[in-house]
């Protein structure tokens, strides 16, 4: 029987593969891709993977995501791989790396942190203290965040 592809290959754009299962929607959130963006986006959730058991995949057509844009997704999907596609050929392939510091994207889990105070003109900021397992220290209150996916803004 012919293997049926769940999502057809794209001609040009970016394929984000090996996303931690269940995190695809958070990936879109971090990349600020929503219903108001023009790009054609395909999302596959909980697909079987030899390496990971289950994984998610996101394909963004006609848009080449830059490393500093995609590195942010390492917060929630440290094993993600980025494939840049040109005329149906993979022209670039790389991993994601946790940035040393992260502004915005996640909020501090400490409700009493100044970065969560509504009146103050301040954006959350975290310093990466460990890559594996990923751990982040709030720049303001110094609380450690371990599961970034629970704290996406």
């Amino acid at each position, binding site marked *: 029987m012919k293997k049926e592809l769940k999502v057809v290959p794209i001609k040009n754009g970016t394929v984000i593969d090996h996303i931690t299962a269940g995190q695809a929607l958070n990936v879109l959130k971090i990349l600020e891709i929503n219903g108001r963006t023009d790009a054609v986006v395909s999302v596959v959730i909980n697909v079987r993977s030899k390496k990971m058991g289950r994984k998610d995949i996101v394909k963004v057509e006609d848009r080449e995501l830059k490393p500093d844009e995609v590195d942010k997704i390492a917060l929630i999907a440290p094993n993600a791989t980025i494939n840049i596609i040109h005329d149906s050929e993979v022209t670039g392939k790389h991993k994601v790396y946790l940035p040393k510091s992260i502004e915005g994207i996640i909020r*501090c889990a400490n409700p009493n*942190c*100044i*970065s969560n*105070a509504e009146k103050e003109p301040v954006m959350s900021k975290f310093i990466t203290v460990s890559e594996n397992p990923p751990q982040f220290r709030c720049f303001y209150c*110094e609380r*450690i965040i371990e599961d970034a996916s629970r704290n996406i803004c």
Partner: protein
Amino acid sequence: MFTKRHIISTRDFSKEEIDYVLSRAEELEIYARAEEPGDGKGRGRKSDLLKGKILANLFYEPSTRTRFSFETAMKRLGGEVINLSSTEASSVAKGENLADTIRTVSGYCDVIVLRHPHEGASRMAASFSPVPIINAGDGAGQHPTQTLLDLYTIKREGLLDGLRIALIGDLKYGRTVHSLAYALSLYKATLFFVSPEALRMPDEIKSDLKEAGAEVLESTDIKEIIKEANVLYVTRIQKERFPDPAEYRKVAGTYRITTDLIEENEDVIIMHPLPKVDEIDVEVDGTKNARYFKQTFYGVPVRMAILSILLGKEEMG
């Protein structure tokens, strides 16, 4: 040597920087004491090192020791102090945010001392202030000048090298013990953590401390370690941490410092960040072991040191 523009967290300090503050405090201690008139044996001396400088005390939460000792430190060095002592009587009551208050007040002074109920408030304030911010407590977060004065007290007792200190009481939530333990790890101290099971030092802090070079031992019984330690650092166990008042009374009683306990180790010194309630028997106050009132006095030379360094007046008084 000293590159800090703001004093926000103990974590920002290297051991060399702490040593520098402590030695500067020693130089300035003579100016922290009251002048005594008469035969020249007076211990205090006058200084106008910070003449013409203004410190703004911004306290959004109550304080006695910290606010007074900053004020005393500034005035004993010839500087002046302006105070926001009641948030009800200022723009804060009208809903002004901290960032705007800092932008405003920083135009009136040379240094700001801030205590605020939100963790991280001082770090944020620093990004809006052209003058140095000193964190005097941010919620349950950091209180670095308390740590520095604790270290200064230990140093003045000649115990900083090879220190064996027991931190007693609420080690889970107590901000002073977390900062102090971190700073002591820089001195490779032996740390005994003595607390009820429910208020133990968090694991991530313990592993941080071990990594930094401290030796860490835990116990639920002071009697087990009293002979081993040369300093007992006692903190308050808060009633509200216990859902059952009877359980609180039982636990609090177990961790009370009494003269009977001290007999087990006559040379041990007892410190406490204060205010104390009933975790130290009042009879202990008069013993040669009690250091907590001296400790509060040391807040003045330590804060003098910090002010003189931040305001670029590093010559003698």
